[in-house]
């Protein structure tokens, strides 16, 4: 079984986001780029599955749509333990464009199980994974918090409102994963970092596609009013304010 993990590179989650060019694009000055947190968990789970011989997982590949600027993120994924990497040499213009490119690569390379994070922490679309599944015509689950392979079949747990469902899928298939899929993201070892240098990154040129959406401008959310402090000895005052002033209880 071959697993593909799709990865996005995003600003480190502690970044103070700023914009440039009349708020049309992200100010990348000083930004530390990281593997999107859900993709990192997804890669961790894929590697755990490969290390368990009973799953029959033979290889873990990562795929990414981005320019040479994101090679450091791909190398990091290789250092964590991915066997090989694919980069589609294009700016990911929107979710549709990105999914279109990834689906094209998957058709050429053939994978049994594709894993995507439930969203990227920059554009928060929650779209790419489901779009790839639809482009390829394969089944998928969203909000997957546990994934195993039993007798060659992926068995996943998905979160539903008020509970969980255990679902078995036929291969090829795709999992859109969320928190819980792996306990903690795996960190690259020194040896991993050394061997990553010699691992292959296959470059694909993009196929023609038009994005369906375009970001016109970014705006910062309106600042909140200053906090009103209440005497810790008199929390009843807080309850009174919530009841009479905010009217939320």
């Amino acid at each position, binding site marked *: 079984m071959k697993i593909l993990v799709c990865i996005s590179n995003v600003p480190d989650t502690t970044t103070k986001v700023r914009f440039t060019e009349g708020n049309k694009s992200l100010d990348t000055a000083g930004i530390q780029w990281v593997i999107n947190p859900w993709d990192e968990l997804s890669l961790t789970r894929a590697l755990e599955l490969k290390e368990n011989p009973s799953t029959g997982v033979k290889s873990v590949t990562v795929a990414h749509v981005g320019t040479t600027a994101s090679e450091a993120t791909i190398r990091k994924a290789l250092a964590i333990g991915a066997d090989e990497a694919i980069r589609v040499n294009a700016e990911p213009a929107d979710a549709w464009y990105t999914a279109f490119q990834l689906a094209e690569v998957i058709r050429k390379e053939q994978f049994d199980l594709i894993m995507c994070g439930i969203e990227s922490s920059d554009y928060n679309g929650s779209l790419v994974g489901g779009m790839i599944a639809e482009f390829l015509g394969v089944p998928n689950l969203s909000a997957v918090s546990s994934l195993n392979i039993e007798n060659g079949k992926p068995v996943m747990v998905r979160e539903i409102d008020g509970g969980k469902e255990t679902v078995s899928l036929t291969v090829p298939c795709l999992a859109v994963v969320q928190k819980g899929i792996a306990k903690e993201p795996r960190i690259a070892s020194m040896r991993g970092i050394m061997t990553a240098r010699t691992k292959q990154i296959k470059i694909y040129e993009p196929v023609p596609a038009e994005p369906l959406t375009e970001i016109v401008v970014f705006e910062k959310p309106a600042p909140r009013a200053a906090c009103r402090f209440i005497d810790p000895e008199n*929390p009843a005052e807080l309850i009174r304010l919530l009841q009479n002033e905010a009217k939320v209880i």
Partner: protein
Amino acid sequence: MSVLVFTENWDGKFKKLSFELVSYARGVADMLNTSVIALQIGAMDEAELIKLGNFGASRIISIDRPELKNLDNQAWAEVIATVARKENAKVIILSGNNTGKALAPRLSVKLKAGVGAGVSRLPLETEPFTVYKRAFSGNALAKTLIRTEVKILTLLQNSYGLSETENKAVMERVDIQTDVGAIKTEVLDVHKQPGKVLLTDADIVVSGGRGMKSPDNWGPLVELASLLGGATACSRPVSDEGWRPHEEHTGQTGKIISPNLYIAVGISGATQHLAGVSSSKYIVAINTDKDAPIFEAAQYGIVGDALKVLPKLVEAVKEIKK
């Protein structure tokens, strides 16, 4: 032309979020001078279906087919796309919850429709079709142009609210003649916790962080949530430590919520945490450190030890509930 809204069915009932979705769809339809068609999949009786009319649906389409018993993204998206084509839907609205996130991307590909994911207010304009969507995990809004003829919007839960109208809806139980193909997913097991207020549905959320000091101290926090008819949540370190289940983790990589009231107890308010709760209407912070960033996001604050303040809050709430 129409606006199609997909309303979810929970064991034969709608939830507040279905009514919120229809209210929002009504707002979009008014901008386009058209009407709202609501679609639901699964068994549901007429008395329940007709409720959508009160929020602005003109027609309600109900589809109940045995092969659609469980959510199969491929089959459900095929059914919704078929209805959308038949009804000439120009805008399709789904929830930004797990079900909406599962269906919207497939519909986008089927209908070649651009998606405005995670909207919380009505479109800015419809020509060209422009929406504000969530970006950078709540640290920005992206004004986004959707270029396609058909548009899909997913609405952040609890962000728009309800608006009731005097409206009489027409009901249709239809059997859409479409081949959904072989179902490739098989549900083996379902685990539900009945009667629990869901974090994503809750109007009030009481959430604990490391300031709670130990998993054994959660009693008063749970009691406070229960007295207020709310749900419990936690910060990431708490779920990572296994003090609380990861389903309760709110923040960038956990649940994104917009309750009316979010009470953060012993949570410092790191950027990643605020990313998940910053669209709450009111935030209350209780923390020992007066410089904790949570107080910058909060409207009301108490500088004090969570474990001492919580029991007093419980008493104060009991007092007003008398």
